[in-house]
């Protein structure tokens, strides 16, 4: 086995090698070879399996049931062919993976009588083989003779390899076995069949006997037979006619021991076979000191290395007589033939096998580099973000190529700032496929990876891409992965099926790919390809300016025999941002969609003429017209939009059919001379897998949007989880639910946990609830930990959710991090909750206990740290690490909310928004939020600028709108707008249009609203209370005023309104501030806290 390992290929292949046969038998050359190869593959370190439909009991431990094997595209299936197969052949042929035929030869049926079973078996077998060849990728034969047959059937010579049968050395024999050579004893091994020539052999034996009875004393034919077979009966009658009944033995199937004895007692092995694909006994005999005399037919020459072959029976007989009389010649022949046998030892065959595998599998590190191609058009901010995040990749072996469409939104200026660090090209046309092809031509990496400008790659994206390609067979020419849909923490789609009609099957089950009409497609925003394959194949079809572009390429590649992989761990986050093709939920570029659908279907469906036309009409009606009609009837879209859409669909169809006449529109790609230009990574950034280990983080929270609705804590964890996932960590979240279930989306698992209620008599209901939940959560975390060890647990102070976890001895649980948010006592006081003192004490004790037992404490602001230490009379110590919350530094505009389109809001029309300076207040209209200060400041604010307009959004439970009407002069009131409650989407859109934000709140533990304003570069005029001054830096990104001082607030707004330069400076400051308080920075600081706990568990004890 040692030699085999030396011969083994140095590869990172992680798939399985599955050898398939119809029946695994004992004492059968093909079955023995399956078992031998299985041993060799295992010794080489591969995951090797034998699968068969039928089997002999003696070999049952070597195989699994064919029907129980599920193949993935990473596997290699080796189908052993030696005749017609009802199950295994068709099964192997329909798998979507790398497929090898190992051909052991099917005897030409003409050699058998027409009514025999063998005739049928071989005839059907050869017909089936011809059908199989185009469906397999690689072709192995145990001799060149066999391989030539496959090549004649169409097998690619460059993918054809000889993998001979392993012939093990002769076994040692037991003492009671006679091994003395008996002169005049002939032997032949092989099933009784006409191609083996046993009848001729008996005749030759008779001839020899006639010449010299001592030269041919006995002939033993070792092999099975079918008593009703014609040839067998012919053989019997021949023996009888020649009077040889006593001198010829037909043994039937014998034990291995008997077989050994026959071989060792004989003087000559004589073979008159006219057709052998290999002929194992021809190699076995010399290994037992027995010379072989055979006819030079079929593969015999190849197997025997040309030694001991004869053109005809006469010369064979002559040689036999000559050898009888010359012992030294006899020994020389045996020696030469035994030397030839060394070609079939395990180690020799392993070398051949490694050679054959080398054309199927990549050697370790074969794929070394990636070219990331981003095609962009008028999405400067998204592009900036994508480039920003690319700097956090853990694997540095990639370059970045940006192809800019005819952008006029500042993208060119952005790209100028990146010049020298990335490759840049321009495409004057708004055509994605042309852009992509330009990107391919500029690329020098082994792999070309496309990511959309509105997507963000996971930190391990490049690393995973290279690892996936290096661990899969070389036929994998493309690879895709899932995309997290921004804002939802759910996959936009996972695996995707595509057919010749351009129908897509989102989340196609893996085993359906390759079955029926379905092949695989990739998500355009996360699709990768082998570069040389793209270059050779002409890349993208430039018809596809948008829509079906990557689908067509994927289909074409697979029709040409390539495999496309799906890698669940190659992940990006995708925004689905607005573009010129996608302006809103029903506002797409319908003409292009129809045009390219029709082109695709015309090219690949096989339909034509009227049939094609009516198929397309129905298709567009069903998929496009009906939903639009529904939207129109529901009043979601206007009549003109609807009618335009119908018209566009119609025009698109005609155009597509016309374009199809010049299909395909691929072109010869030319590689640019620019060398590979590695992207520079962010220095000092600690990447998962490179600098820090991947962690499994468990978060216990009652709020986790969008899974469980919530407030500030939910927002905090939503952003944290999003970033931890992007960084490449695994996250499990324990949230309350009505039933016990786990929702898994790649590295994220949400554990809905059913809390069981027990009532502690005399206990406050709220406390009782919190306590029960904390115990339930502990139970759930233990279960998660059992499945996969949890590295760190994170939970917030509110409701002491992690109390039960905290009180477990510190070394008997994973480390616990507690985030300090507003404590119960402060919330109760702010909300005026009347709580009995003993209950209040218990709530406080819960919190105190949690803080004392946690391994690390994260106050989300300095203010909250001091509030808590005052409330619980506890001093911050080394376990305390202050870390601000963070949010994504870009806005989230949703396709389902028509992106940034803002409908008229209660008298606040588009013209108001365009031509005014919007002073925005967002929050509940209540004193705690400082609405009274706004009322007092309004007249002064409005007086300072005629373009100022005050917009107040939020619920008004106390009727403040009424107060305003009384306190503000009527002529000013038309510049004050009350919107009431607004949705998150409207909030985002208003902030995008605001001039400044008022934030006069009297208490905040952090202040997320100012951060949300900073995202849009909106300066904030805020009160100097709570943690606000930590978020809003005075004169940097806003202006602070003293608590309760409305004059000072009005003055600050007036300064902003009248001093454009100040406004501009603070606006820039706001954008910089949110970059500083970004979710990535916040997650990084959280991680460094996690790290201290994990790398130094002893520190916890101190």
């Amino acid at each position, binding site marked *: 086995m040692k030699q085999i390992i030396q011969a083994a290929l140095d590869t990172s292949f992680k798939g399985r090698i599955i050898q398939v046969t119809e029946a695994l038998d004992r004492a059968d050359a093909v079955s023995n070879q399956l078992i031998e190869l299985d041993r060799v593959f295992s010794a080489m370190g591969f995951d090797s399996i034998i699968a068969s439909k039928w089997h002999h009991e003696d070999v049952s431990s070597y195989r699994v049931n064919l029907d129980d094997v599920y193949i993935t595209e990473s596997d290699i299936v080796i189908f052993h062919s030696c005749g017609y197969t009802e199950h295994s052949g068709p099964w192997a042929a329909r798998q979507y993976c790398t497929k090898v035929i190992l051909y052991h030869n099917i005897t030409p049926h003409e050699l058998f009588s027409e009514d025999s079973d063998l005739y049928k078996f071989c005839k059907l077998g050869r017909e089936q083989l011809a059908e199989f060849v185009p469906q397999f990728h690689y072709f192995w034969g145990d001799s060149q003779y066999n391989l030539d047959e496959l090549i004649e059937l169409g097998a690619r010579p460059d993918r054809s390899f000889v993998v001979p049968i392993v012939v093990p050395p002769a076994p040692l024999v037991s003492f009671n076995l006679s091994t003395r050579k008996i002169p005049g004893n002939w032997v032949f091994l092989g099933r009784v069949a006409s191609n083996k020539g046993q009848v001729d052999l008996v005749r030759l034996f008779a001839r020899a006997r006639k010449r010299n009875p001592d030269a041919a004393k006995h002939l033993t034919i070792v092999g099975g037979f079918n008593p009703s077979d014609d040839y067998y009966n012919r053989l019997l009658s021949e023996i009888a006619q020649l009077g040889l009944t006593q001198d010829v033995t037909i043994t039937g199937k014998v034990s291995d021991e008997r077989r050994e004895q026959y071989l060792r007692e004989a003087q000559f092995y004589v073979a008159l076979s006219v057709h052998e694909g290999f002929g194992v006994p021809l190699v076995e005999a010399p290994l037992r000191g027995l010379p072989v005399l055979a006819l030079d037919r079929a593969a015999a020459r190849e197997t025997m290395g040309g030694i001991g072959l004869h053109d005809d029976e006469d010369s064979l007989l002559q040689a036999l007589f000559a050898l009888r009389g010359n012992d030294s010649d006899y020994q020389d022949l045996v020696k030469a033939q035994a030397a030839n046998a060394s070609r079939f030892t395990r180690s020799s065959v392993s070398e051949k096998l490694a050679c054959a595998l080398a054309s199927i599998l990549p050697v370790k590190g074969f794929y070394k580099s990636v070219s990331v191609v981003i095609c962009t058009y008028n999405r400067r901010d998204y592009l900036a973000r994508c480039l920003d995040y690319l700097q956090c990749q853990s694997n540095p072996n990639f370059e970045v190529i940006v192809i800019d469409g005819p952008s006029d939104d500042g993208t060119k200026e952005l790209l100028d700032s990146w010049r020298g660090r990335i490759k840049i090209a321009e495409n004057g046309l708004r055509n994605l496929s042309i852009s992509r092809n330009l990107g391919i031509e500029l690329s020098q990496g082994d792999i070309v990876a496309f990511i959309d400008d509105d997507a963000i790659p996971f930190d391990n994206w490049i690393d995973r891409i290279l690892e996936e390609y290096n661990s899969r067979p070389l036929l994998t020419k493309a690879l895709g992965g899932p995309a997290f849909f921004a804002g939802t923490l759910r996959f936009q789609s*996972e695996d995707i099926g595509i057919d010749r009609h351009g129908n897509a099957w989102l989340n196609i*089950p*893996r085993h359906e790919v390759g079955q029926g009409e379905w092949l695989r497609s990739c998500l355009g925003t996360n699709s990768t390809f082998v570069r040389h394959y793209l270059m050779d194949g002409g890349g993208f079809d430039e018809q596809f300016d948008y829509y079906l572009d990557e689908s067509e390429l994927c289909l074409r590649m697979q029709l040409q025999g390539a495999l496309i992989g799906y890698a669940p761990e190659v992940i990006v986050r995708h925004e689905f941002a607005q573009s010129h093709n996608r302006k809103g939920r029903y506002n797409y570029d319908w003409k292009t969609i129809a045009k390219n659908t029709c082109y695709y279907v015309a090219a690949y469906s096989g339909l034509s003429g009227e049939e094609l036309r009516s198929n397309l009409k129905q298709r567009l009606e069903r998929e496009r017209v009906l939903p639009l009609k529904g939207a129109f009837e529901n009043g979601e879209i206007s009549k003109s939009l609807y009618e335009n859409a119908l018209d566009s669909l119609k025009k698109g169809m005609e155009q597509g059919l016309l374009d199809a006449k010049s299909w395909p529109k691929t072109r010869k790609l030319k590689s640019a001379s620019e060398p590979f230009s590695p992207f520079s990574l962010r220095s000092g950034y600690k990447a998962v897998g490179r600098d820090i280990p991947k962690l499994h983080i468990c978060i216990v929270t*009652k709020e986790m949007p969008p*899974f*469980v*609705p*919530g*407030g500030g804590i939910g927002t905090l964890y939503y952003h944290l989880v999003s970033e931890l996932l992007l960084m490449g960590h695994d996250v499990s979240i324990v*949230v*309350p*639910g*009505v039933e*016990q*279930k*786990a*929702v*898994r*989306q790649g590295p994220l698992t949400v*554990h*809905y946990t*059913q809390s*069981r209620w*027990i009532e*502690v*008599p*005399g*206990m406050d*209901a*709220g406390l009782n*609830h919190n*306590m029960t939940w904390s*115990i*339930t959560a*502990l*139970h759930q975390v233990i*279960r998660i*930990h*059992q499945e996969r060890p949890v590295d760190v647990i994170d939970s917030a102070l509110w409701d002491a959710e992690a*109390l*039960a976890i905290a*009180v*477990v*001895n510190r*070394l008997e*649980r*994973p480390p616990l991090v507690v985030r300090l948010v507003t404590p119960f006592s402060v919330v109760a006081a702010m*909300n005026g*909750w*009347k709580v009995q003192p*003993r209950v209040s*004490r218990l709530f406080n004790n*819960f919190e105190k*206990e949690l803080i004392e037992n946690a391994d690390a404490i994260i106050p989300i602001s300095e203010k909250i740290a001091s509030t808590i230490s005052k409330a619980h009379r506890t001093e911050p110590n080394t376990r305390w690490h202050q870390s601000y919350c963070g949010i994504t530094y870009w806005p989230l505009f949703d396709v389902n909310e028509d992106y940034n389109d803002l409908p008229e809001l209660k008298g606040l029309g588009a013209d108001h928004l365009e031509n005014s300076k919007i002073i925005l207040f967002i929050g509940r209209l209540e004193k705690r939020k400082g609405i009274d200060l706004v009322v007092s400041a309004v007249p002064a604010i409005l007086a300072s600028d005629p373009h100022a307009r005050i917009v107040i959004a939020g*619920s008004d*439970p106390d009727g403040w709108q009424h107060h305003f009407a009384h306190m503000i002069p009527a002529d000013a009131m038309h510049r004050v707008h009350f919107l009431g*409650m607004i*949705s*998150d989407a409207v909030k985002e859109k208003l902030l995008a249009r605001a001039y400044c934000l008022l934030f006069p709140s009297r208490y905040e533990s952090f202040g997320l609203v100012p951060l949300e304003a900073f995202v849009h570069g909106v300066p904030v005029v805020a009160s100097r209370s709570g943690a606000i001054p930590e978020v809003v830096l005075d004169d940097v990104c806003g202006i602070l005023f003293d608590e309760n001082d409305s004059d000072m607030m009005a003055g600050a707004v007036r300064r902003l309104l009248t001093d454009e330069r100040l406004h501009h400076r603070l606006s820039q400051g706001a954008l910089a501030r949110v970059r500083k308080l970004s979710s990535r920075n916040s997650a990084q600081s959280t991680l460094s806290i996690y790290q201290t706990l994990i790398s130094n*568990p002893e520190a916890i004890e101190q």
Partner: protein
Amino acid sequence: MHVSDLLRLNGASFVETAYSIILKRQVDRSGLDHFMNRLASGDSKEAIIVTLATSAEAKGSRIDLIGLPTLIRKGGKSPLRRFLRFFSQIRDMRRQLARIEYIVSQQENILAGSAIHSPIMVEDRSAGHAHVRVSGDDLHNTLVSIQDSLSNTAYDADLFIDSFKKTIRSSPLFFVMSH
């Protein structure tokens, strides 16, 4: 429907039903969050009905809710709470009630969250979601022993925590740690 029927509902289902009767539409996320917060922070259900019924959105539409005009006249104060106002010493009962309502609303929140997402979750996708079954015996036993050991300590905060700690530490719930 009578106002009292509506008032019998709690939490999210109260807000949803109020929306469907008064505004004749489904509640949106932000609306639901807002009114759940109002309930949590002590606003009465009556007040919320009045807010909805007098909102700009409801203006001009006929609301089929018997007893609504009376409620609006009273300004959304419940009869119980008007009665309570006579007893100044227990005036804070309102806040107490509000807090209990907050606790209930939290439960409702869980229900609401699950109800929104479960149709997506339970769908059978071989590659997607693993369903976890919990025997729950350990959890159940722990909860029962907590119930026993805490019953007498619920009035003493320090004793309570001590007892809670001891019970958890001696419970069958433990992590299998590798170090």
